[in-house]
Every structure is written in structure tokens, then in C-alpha cells.
């Protein structure tokens, strides 16, 4: 069935014309040809479901008195297949801002890199660093403009600016939340439990790192789509530092060491008559 879309066409271009020399390629209105199908709504739903990965990961971040603690696992899965155990899910946007990756790896990496570029341009244009609020708003607006087109990004922007530590959750549906504690991904409900019960604003850096590590470990224990290495980063007034990267399998045995089993009867040589 050929649908008649003439009513939807606008006479004037929505964004700047194509001969605009300053166009950077991203300001043109995104568009694509609609497929010929009898059930367009069903097709659209199916195609979005196909493209949209299930955010198989665990990432978390929280603000405490000494800054922001950011942690993530490192497993990439495609359905039931583990495609990698060593994915970098904490992306370094600039020396004082970190982004976490959940959802489509390409989407997260590309748009975080793009955000880094925009932050640097802001620094050069305004002679001062961009705030975490500003950076997260830039990313949220970009993602909002691609809303409904199948981007899958669930990220947290953590950084330290003039106002102190800042943490924002930004996702591909266009949502942006300011907060003190977030966890994103398929393992996030498990991580929230450990994080909420152990959280204290006045923790030291070591205590906070251990809480973050423990929360990621427990999420990887229960969630099949999370695993690999638990990386923990700290963002302080002088920027971010990587604190640790521990294999969760080894963490398991360090938290729950194997007790030698009590042997009741030992096998001995049968006494020959």
C-alpha cells in the first residue's frame, strides 16, 4: 500500500539550507526513505526492537564528600554470546569529566567523543572549562534530536567543575536527570541494592571505591550480561584517576574464599590380610 505523505512535506527547509558553508553535517534534519509495507507501525516497532540492544551492562556513579566515584563492568554481549570481556565502558571525555557507556557501544563511543569535541570548542571559545551541567545538556539535546531513530545510549556524565562534583544521567529517550547516585544497565537493580545500603556521604575515597567495586561485583554475579573486569575511577578536584580494575571472578574468591571442606573419613589403603 503506497501511503500519501504529501501532507507532511514542508515547503521550507527546517534547518539551514544545504549550501550553508558553516554546516557541520549534523545540523541537517535527519531523514530516511520510508519502506513500502502494509503494516508500517508494526514494521517500525520491530525495526527499533532489532536495533536497540538491551543495555547489557552494569555501570554506576555516585557523589560523596571527596568527589565522584564511577565504576563499570567490561562485558559486551550479543544475546547469549559474550563478544568481549574487556570493553572500556568508562569513557574519558576530558581530564576532569568521565562518561559511562550503556546501550549501543558505537553510539556511546561516538557521541561521547563528539561531546569531548564540543567541550573543547567551548573551552577555546569561552576561555574557561565547560560545566558538567553544560556538557550533559549538550549531550541530552543531541540525543533528543535523534529521538525515535533507534539510538541506544544510557550514560552518566560525571565531573568536577567550579561548583564542585557533578553527576547527570542522560539517555537516548532524551531524559536528563541531576542526581547524587545512579546505576544504569541490565545489572543496575542488583547494584542499586548494594549501593543504597552501603552509601554514606562522608565515606573516604577508599571506602567509596570499595563500595563501588562491591556493587559492580554483586551485579555481575547475578546478571548474565555483566562481567569481566570491575573498573573504578575517582573524579576529584584535580581531575579523574583510575583507582582499580579487578577481574570479578577473582573478586568473588577474595570476598568469599573457599574454605577447605571438613573431611570426615579419609580414604586409606585397604589393609591387606
Amino acid at each position, binding site marked *: 500500500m503506497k501511503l500519501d505523505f504529501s501532507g507532511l512535506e514542508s515547503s521550507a527547509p527546517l534547518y539551514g539550507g544545504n549550501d550553508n558553508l558553516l554546516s557541520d553535517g549534523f545540523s541537517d534534519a535527519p531523514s530516511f526513505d520510508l519502506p513500502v509495507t502494509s503494516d508500517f507501525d508494526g514494521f517500525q516497532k520491530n525495526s527499533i526492537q532489532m536495533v536497540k540492544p538491551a543495555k547489557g551492562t552494569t555501570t554506576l556513579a555516585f557523589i560523596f564528600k571527596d568527589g565522584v566515584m564511577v565504576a563499570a563492568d567490561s562485558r559486551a554481549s550479543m544475546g547469549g554470546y559474550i563478544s568481549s570481556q574487556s570493553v572500556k565502558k568508562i569513557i574519558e571525555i576530558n581530564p576532569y569529566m568521565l562518561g559511562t557507556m550503556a546501550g549501543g557501544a558505537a553510539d556511546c563511543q561516538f557521541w561521547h567523543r563528539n561531546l569531548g569535541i564540543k567541550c573543547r570548542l567551548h573551552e577555546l571559545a569561552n576561555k574557561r572549562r565547560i560545566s558538567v551541567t553544560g556538557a550533559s545538556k549538550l549531550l*541530552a539535546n543531541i540525543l533528543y534530536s535523534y529521538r525515535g531513530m533507534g539510538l541506544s545510549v544510557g550514560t552518566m556524565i560525571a565531573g568536577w567543575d567550579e561548583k564542585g562534583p557533578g553527576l547527570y544521567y542522560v539517555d537516548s529517550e532524551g531524559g536528563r536527570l541531576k542526581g547524587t547516585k545512579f546505576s544504569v544497565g541490565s545489572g543496575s537493580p542488583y547494584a542499586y541494592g548494594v549501593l543504597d545500603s552501603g552509601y554514606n556521604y562522608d565515606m573516604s575515597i577508599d571506602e567509596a571505591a570499595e563500595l563501588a567495586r562491591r556493587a559492580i561485583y554483586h551485579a555481575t554475579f547475578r546478571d548474565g550480561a555483566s562481567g569481566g573486569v570491575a573498573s573504578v575511577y575517582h573524579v576529584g578536584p584535580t581531575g579523574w584517576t583510575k583507582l582499580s580494575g579487578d577481574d570479578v571472578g577473582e573478586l568473588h574468591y577474595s570476598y568469599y574464599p573457599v574454605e577447605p571442606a571438613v573431611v570426615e573419613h579419609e580414604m586409606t589403603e585397604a589393609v591387606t590380610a
Partner: protein
Amino acid sequence: MECVFGMVGKDFALVVADTSAVNSILVHKSNEDKIMVLDNHKLMGASGEAGDRAQFTEYVQKNVSLYQFRNGIPLTTKAAANFIRGELATALRKNPYQVNIILAGYEKETGPSLYFIDYIATLHKVDKAAFGYGSYFALSMMDRHYHPDMTVEEAVKLADQCIDEIRSRLVVAPQNFVIKIVDKDGAREHSWRRTTKE
């Protein structure tokens, strides 16, 4: 599971909204303010899809400010309501915004007013309105107990009754609520109703 409701009183209008930011089964935040102060004498409570709610309400707020800068006088509540409805209607057949809005405002000349604006650009001037699953409980409560020219105490008491009903009867009720009021002294936060601290 978002709940926004509002009512008009003697010389004021009240808007109540839950403050939860939810993603499938997870509550990311329980202190998210969904009632935006448009200008000195206008409140806009919004519920709907996360990105649309924040972006559209900010867009409206900036345009309302722009009008005031350009023309030296603020928009009336009726004009703001019609502007919002117009924006929703224009976007409806291309790129619809999934936001439901309750606009409350106060003018010296016309007194308090409340507007119900649907996500499909329905506009009604009303005395009481509600959106979300909470509306099933709030609307009947308000229908039963509301009367014109209520005092602030009576209106807050009715709002509390609605919140209690939502808390006890809605299967996944929001944890915290915020109450905002607009009257001749301006638009401001009145109080919170919390069950959790964060």
C-alpha cells in the same frame, strides 16, 4: 505511574505532582521537580515521556520569557495556554510531544485560572484537573469534596486526601509529592509530601 493534579481556590491555584523519575522498574530519582515555574505568576505541571517533558516545558518557558522581553509585559495565562496548545498541535502530525500539562496562573484582572492541556493538544479551562493513573483517584476525590472559593487550608487538605488515596490504592504509587501554589504574591513551592528522603 506519574500523577499531576490541580485545582482553583478563592484567589489562588494549586498544582500537585509526584516527584519520581522512573525507567521501567527502576526509580532513578524521587525528588525530580515536575512543576515548572514559567514566570512570576504561572505554574506548569507536566507529566509524560522523560525527554519530551523536560525539553518541551523548557521550550515553553524560554518562549514565555522571550515574549516578556520583547513586549515588556508578561503573557496572560490564557495566552500561554493557547501558545502551548498551538505548539503541541503543530507538532502532533509530525513529531508529537508525549507531554500532558496542567497550567495554573493568576492575574489581578481575572483571578486564578487552571488549564488542562492534553498530549494531543486538547485545551480546556477548568476548575480541577488531573493526569496519570493517579487521576482515577484524584478526580473523584476532587469531584466529591471540591467547592468553589476554597481557602488554601481547605485546598491543601483536599490535595492531601488525594495523595493519601493515591498512596493507598495505586499499585505502584510514587513515593514523594510536591505542592506548588500561585496567587497574588507569585508562584512558589508550598510544601512536599515525602515518604523517602532522597
